[in-house]
């Protein structure tokens, strides 16, 4: 780790926010997904990157810049905990500041932009931030030792001060700053063992809670900028379409409407307020040139995918002798599964405020990827130097992978350029739902072979799924897609023979990261199918999984804990249970759903038991929250989530056609976190993938019918 202390950074001002000491540090990042199946060249991250800075303040607080957007997962709270632990600060002395946009310092090299991918921010930061805290603490102790001319060993760092207990002398970190700035920063300072942690590993409140409970948190949609107009937009209903013509008159006669602005592929109405803009937009009748995607619909996309399942695809894994396993099997089970497009449906619809000023553009919005906005706008607005594109990040009303998209800010800036004013562009819910970057639809065929004792001898499958990676890096020709088979071929289960292939069809429907990415549908496939195999083998589903996952002690511990805690095999009278287990995103989670199902398919959930192995964790309370959140996410996806395509356009327009799970559907969720290891996992997504199959397996236990496609609603299943 390289650190630099700049004397220049000293400000001797007396204000409480006066910067005292600024230390740049480099954070090595790992790829977002450990399981890259293909050629790694452009995607492996192997160099250090600067992504955060420290500032000591005269009021004995320390400001830490976080490059991770606060998506709701609590990273704003967790990241400073890492530093505070080693720096011997009390947590209330830590201030977090959102990273300023600085492409070289903050970009995540996986995608080449400053971005919060998945929920990896905390995992990536785990060692570097602690090391930063430790090295800086030692620097400050050294500074005190020099000041007092005493041996280092006689100094103690605690609560933002270094003291000399023998003499009772004490200086704050701020006061030590100038001396420290002239000194070498110690390196290789050993990190505290977990047993000595005082903050990490304990439940600790988030500090955005109060702002979010008192309506003082500012979201992108709340922005007010001097002189701005409010705008709303109708973009081409079919991806790739363009605007042919629009008569602006009907909108201009609406009170409050200012202008009708046309873009290549959209029409925008600006007004003094949102309602006038919306009324104006609704009064228009834009004519579109829809382009080739208008020939696509859910049926022909599905048929193309099913057809692909009959053809060899890209090989993701081929271990053992799968042909012999199938030929010599006592039993072979085959099944075809599928899942639809899903919308993120963040509760805050996409929006962006932009002020285009000719030689600069300033943005205000909640975004997971300020850097992507900057690089995209540098292309769209070649007249504006890239360094003059400023992104002010706000609270995000839900990210889930959706808020890395630069489209809304780009549109807002285009409109601002035309009207010569700052523009707050708000997508209506209808615009948001019909113009998503959906979790891709997929179809899969799986085969499993069992020997005479009911043991699995081989597992193979072929999946057709649009490439999320290709859409993310804006390159349809990317030759591989690690997300296609994640959750199907990971090492949490071991099979004597394992073979998977994938196809990446290109129907032209926009797709993107969705919480759980590939894992969320692939785990539904695998874990439902494992239940089918367990049934065919006449074995208990947890015992069956223990055999597949038993090569890791932690898996055995997890499954045994799950069985015990859920009272597996002994549901309350009238209830059934379903189980699922999965690795995803460096963590492993098992869930048991206890439910009752009426004859007409009405499901009542009674209890959800969730046992998770997230390695070492910073805040157990946050892990619990994240499990509850992710399970709810998985349940909405499984029960209701379905985006359908008619003539290239999205059918579902609002929540009445795209339902979300409500409080009455969610029972007690009992979360157990396995004792920590020493490598961090990730809490934000891994709870979601097991939820759909655990529910499906419970429903099958009650009704005998296997749900091989989502959403379950289409099979006549509803919540009681």
């Amino acid at each position, binding site marked *: 780790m390289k650190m630099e202390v700049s004397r220049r950074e000293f400000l001797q001002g007396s204000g409480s926010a006066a910067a005292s000491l600024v230390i740049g540090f480099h954070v090595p990042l790992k790829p977002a997904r450990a399981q890259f199946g293909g050629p790694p060249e452009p995607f492996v991250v192997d160099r250090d990157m600067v992504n955060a800075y420290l500032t000591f303040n005269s009021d004995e607080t320390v400001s830490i810049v976080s490059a991770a957007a606060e998506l709701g997962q609590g990273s704003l709270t967790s990241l400073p905990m890492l530093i505070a632990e080693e720096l011997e600060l009390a947590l209330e002395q830590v201030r977090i500041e959102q990273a300023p946009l600085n492409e070289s310092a903050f970009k995540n090299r996986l995608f080449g932009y400053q971005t919060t991918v998945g929920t990896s921010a905390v995992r990536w930061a785990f060692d570097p931030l602690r090391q930063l805290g430790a090295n800086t603490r030692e620097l400050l102790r050294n500074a005190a030792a020099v000041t007092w001319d005493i041996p280092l060993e006689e100094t103690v760092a605690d609560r933002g001060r270094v003291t000399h207990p023998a003499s009772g002398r004490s200086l704050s970190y701020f006061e030590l700053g100038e001396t420290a700035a002239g000194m070498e920063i110690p390196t290789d300072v050993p990190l505290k063992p977990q047993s000595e942690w005082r903050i990490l590993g304990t439940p600790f409140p988030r500090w955005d*809670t109060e702002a979010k409970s008192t309506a003082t948190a500012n979201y992108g949609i709340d922005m007010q900028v001097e002189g701005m107009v409010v705008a709303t937009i109708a973009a081409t209903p079919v991806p790739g379409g363009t605007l042919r013509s629009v008569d602006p008159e009907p909108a201009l006669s609406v009170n409050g409407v200012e202008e009708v602005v046309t873009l290549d592929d959209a029409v925008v109405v600006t007004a003094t307020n949102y309602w006038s803009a919306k009324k104006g937009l609704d009064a228009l009748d834009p004519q579109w040139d829809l382009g080739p995607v208008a020939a696509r619909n859910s049926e022909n996309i599905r048929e193309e995918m099913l057809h692909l399942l009959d053809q060899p695809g890209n090989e993701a894994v081929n271990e053992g002798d799968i042909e012999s396993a199938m030929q010599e099997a006592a039993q072979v089970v085959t099944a075809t599964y599928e899942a639809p497009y899903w919308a993120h449906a963040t509760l*805050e619809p996409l929006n962006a405020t932009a002020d285009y000023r000719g030689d600069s553009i300033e943005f205000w919005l909640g975004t997971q990827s300020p850097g992507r906005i900057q690089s995209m706008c540098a292309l769209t607005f070649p007249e504006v130097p890239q360094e003059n594109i400023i992104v002010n990040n706000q609270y995000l009303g839900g990210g889930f992978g959706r808020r890395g998209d630069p489209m809304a800010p780009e549109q807002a800036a285009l409109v601002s350029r035309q009207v010569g004013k700052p523009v707050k562009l708000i997508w209506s819910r209808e615009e948001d739902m019909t113009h998503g970057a959906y979790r891709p639809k997929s179809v899969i065929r799986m085969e499993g072979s069992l020997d005479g004792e009911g043991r699995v001898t081989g597992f193979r499958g072929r999946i057709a799924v649009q490439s999320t990676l290709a859409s993310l890096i804006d390159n349809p020709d990317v030759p591989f897609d690690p997300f296609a088979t994640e959750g199907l071929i990971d090492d949490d289960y071991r099979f004597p023979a394992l073979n998977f292939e994938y196809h990446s069809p290109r129907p032209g429907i926009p797709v993107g990261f969705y919480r759980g990415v590939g894992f969320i549908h692939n785990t539904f496939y695998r874990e439902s199918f494992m239940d089918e195999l367990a049934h065919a083998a006449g074995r208990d589903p947890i015992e069956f999984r223990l055999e597949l996952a038993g090569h890791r002690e932690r898996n055995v511990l997890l499954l045994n804990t799950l069985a015990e805690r859920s009272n597996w095999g002994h549901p309350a009278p009238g209830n059934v249970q379903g189980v699922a287990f999965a690795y995803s995103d460096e963590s492993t989670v098992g869930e048991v759903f206890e439910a009752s199902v009426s004859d007409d398919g009405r499901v009542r959930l009674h209890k959800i038991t969730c046992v998770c192995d997230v390695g070492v964790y910073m805040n157990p309370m946050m892990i619990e929250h994240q499990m509850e959140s992710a399970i709810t996410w998985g349940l909405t996806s499984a029960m209701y989530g379905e985006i359908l395509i008619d003539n290239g356009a999205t059918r579902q327009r609002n929540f009445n056609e795209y339902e979300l799970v409500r409080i009455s559907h969610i029972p007690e969720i009992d979360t157990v976190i396995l004792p920590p290891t020493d490598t961090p996992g990730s809490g934000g997504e891994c709870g979601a993938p097991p939820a759909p199959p655990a529910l499906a397996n419970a429903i099958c236990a009650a009704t005998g019918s296997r749900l091989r496609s989502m959403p379950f609603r289409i099979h006549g299943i509803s919540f009681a």
Partner: protein
Amino acid sequence: MITLTVNGQTHQIDAEPDTPLLWVLRDFLGHNGAKYGCGIAYCGACTVHVDGNAVRSCIVPASAAEGSDIRTIEDLDNHPVQQAWIEHQVPQCGYCQSGMIMAAKGLLDRNPEPSDADIDAAITNVCRCGTYTRIRTAIHTAAATMREARS
């Protein structure tokens, strides 16, 4: 011109009479606590109180609220519901929570000791982040605090 009384203050607003209360609050009065989520009364992010009832302000024309006592989350000052929200660390992204808090307050104003079933029936707001189990617990805590304060 519409005349509205919001959090005890009367305002003359130059908005079209059909403008939903939500957008008057947000775009004309700068009260950003009530959020836009759907505009069709589905999600509850826009919940405010009109004459003591929790309503979804996105479908209430402002003209229909003239003469009513409109209260938004900005009117709450360390209310027991908010205290409970902080104690149980309810918010994740937080976007739904103003509406949730106003819906919870609406429930507790009517029913000081709600059962889980009462909560399930009354709280139909949606939270995309899935903070539901915390919300349930926090409502029970707030109910207890409010009962204590009364007795």
